[in-house]
């Protein structure tokens, strides 16, 4: 038992952190929200160069093999930086194609996804109805409850999320039938667990970014002649925010190690709630300036709620946790 990230795992996260810190992600997020995907794609290309997407695909098709702890660690950094786009969905699609084991499909899609040349969005049974960023993603995969994997296109108007950097579209229900049967259903179930895990990781990073920015602000903003961070009501709220995030982190690691449905649900529940609480604290402690879209803080503030609910709302996650318990002898 050694429940700590390895040197390599920490190094990988540090590499991503450095790369993203140097990439002006806030500008890319704002452009993405305005429909210009170019700066965002440039960030993606740099991420792909680190091998990030290769952690969700098998070696036969250019991947590094399925490595959930490394990938989850990476997604904490994506959340911290606020990287826009269907990052979770692209990784989950790669997992689905890897797990499916259909050689022709794997050859057709995986190399592009691994290299960051293409991206994917997808909807899965039990997930939400909307495909994220269907306008930006190269491929839109859907899996129906009956186990049909299709390459679909989007129907109807593109809807904007509460987070303007997230665009939502309903798949049209048709498209090329790629595969069908129980193998698709099984692969889709795995992919859904990965999507939930990686969203949990993004939540944790988002929450940490919100806390760090708020702590900085509380040290520097003065009222009544003193830094507001010296007021106990402010301190205690920030302490509680840290508490929430620090207890979500080990759940995320454990979920990445086992990928057991109950563990993944526990991680998503806890990280999602902690990040949302961090957002509410950030908003309150910034005062009115926090309630504007002008401050970059808003890029994370507006993400926290959709991420909390994507790929498993708190209520769905609680049900999954208990379901596993009640099934146990």
């Amino acid at each position, binding site marked *: 038992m050694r*429940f*700590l990230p390895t040197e390599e795992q920490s190094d990988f996260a540090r590499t991503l952190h450095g790369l993203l810190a140097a990439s002006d992600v806030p500008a890319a997020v704002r452009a993405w929200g305005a429909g210009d995907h170019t700066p965002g794609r440039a960030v993606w290309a740099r991420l792909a160069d680190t091998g990030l997407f290769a952690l969700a695909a098998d070696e036969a098709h250019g991947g590094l093999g399925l490595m959930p702890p490394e990938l989850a660690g990476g997604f904490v950094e994506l959340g911290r930086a606020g990287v826009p786009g269907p990052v979770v969905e692209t990784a989950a699609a790669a997992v689905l194609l890897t797990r499916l084991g259909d050689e022709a499909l794997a050859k057709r899609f995986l190399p592009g996804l691994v290299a960051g040349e293409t991206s994917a969005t997808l909807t899965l049974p039990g997930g939400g109805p909307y495909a994220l960023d269907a306008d930006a993603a190269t491929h839109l995969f859907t899996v129906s409850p009956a186990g049909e994997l299709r390459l679909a296109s989007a129907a109807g108007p593109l809807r904007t999320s509460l987070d303007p950097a997230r665009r939502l579209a309903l798949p049209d229900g048709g498209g090329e039938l790629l595969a069908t049967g129980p193998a698709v259903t099984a692969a889709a179930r795995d992919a859904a667990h990965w999507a939930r895990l990686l969203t949990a990781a993004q939540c944790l990073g988002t929450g940490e970014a919100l806390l760090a920015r708020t702590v900085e602000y*509380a040290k520097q903003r003065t009222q009544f002649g003193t830094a507001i961070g010296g007021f106990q009501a402010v301190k205690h709220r920030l302490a509680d925010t*840290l508490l929430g995030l620090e207890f979500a982190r080990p759940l995320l*690691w454990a979920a990445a*190690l086992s990928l057991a449905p109950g563990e993944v649900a*526990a991680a998503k529940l806890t990280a999602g709630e902690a990040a949302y609480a961090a957002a509410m604290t950030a908003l309150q402690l910034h005062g009115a300036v926090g309630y504007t879209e002008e401050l970059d803080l808003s890029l994370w503030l507006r993400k926290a709620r959709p991420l909390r609910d994507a790929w498993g709302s708190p209520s769905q996650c*609680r049900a999954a946790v208990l379901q596993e318990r009640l099934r146990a002898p």
Partner: protein
Amino acid sequence: MDLNHAPHVEAFRAEARDWLAAHVPATPLPSLETREGFAAHREWEALLHSARWAVVSWPEEYGGRGVDIEHWLVFEEEYWAAGAPGRVSQNGINLLAPTLFDHATDEQRARVLPSMASGETIWAQAWSEPESGSDLASLKSRAVRTEGGWLLSGQKTWSSRAAFADRAFGIFRTDPDAPKPHQGLTYLMFDLHAPGVTVRPIGRLDGKPAFAELFLDEVFVPDADVIGEPGQGWRIAMSTTGNERGLTLRAPGRFLAAADRLVDLWRSHGDPADTALRDRVADAVVGARAYQLFTWANASRFASGETIGAESSLNKVFWSQYDIALHESALDLLGPDAELADGEWAEPWIFSLAGPIYAGTNEIQRDIIAERLLGLPKGRR
């Protein structure tokens, strides 16, 4: 990252499980906050000690097994899962023993630790005073130099289990002229049956004499019972408060077992339509797991040579809030039976309510988290 225990740790777990299965009393012991319960718990701890399960992490010469923290955490999981009794000697084991390991003489360790491990001598913590709660450094009880030792005078309060305990440990002012309140304090041990000591039990919320006031009138303490250097009491005391808040006071095994019992209660009493309550049961399951994993991560950092400092304040706030929420959920599941004072969840609920107050109140812990972990400015205290 690896959450699997090595085979020798699993073997240790199996040995503990087998022993506990064969020896844990079939019917729960009476409350340890009563005279008869105290006696029954002493007997249990003597039995535990005879098989060397009382203090597994201590060196063998003092009755332990010399195992590391991972073994201890595994043992605690088995201990609580087996429904074994709460530990009447916990104040000594969690608070005094670590102090002795770090600061005492070999003679003191050899004299004090074995009888602590066996439950023969039960220790009480005498830190708080009527005027010194959160602001502990303002304490006024004195120790005055005398031939061969010190004379203690003053009043201590809220001393857990002192109503039936044998000895106590605490901090006393030895230099009233020291420039700062936390200077000129001395850490020492004394006998609760010594001349000059009056113990007045205090009924806690449910009336049980779970703590006591101590009135001290020139109580003699030999030099041999001073821990560390006179005048260094504050530093010595603070070096062990991390234990109180951190890993060792509330092992995750305790909450894992409680969450399991809560799930069982949901199975037998839960109303499937009451999803709000069901969600709280799920939160209890997740919280116990989070606390277990958080502790494993800290234990791993420990094992790799890092120290755990202000992080122990995160632990303390977490488990104390968690404990109350879990017990409230149990009471809600029980419905009208929750009100019965002799119910299985009644006393644990009462016990949980004190969590945010003792071991440093949660307000004080949040200050520590904010100032030491987040680097926010120090406020007026």
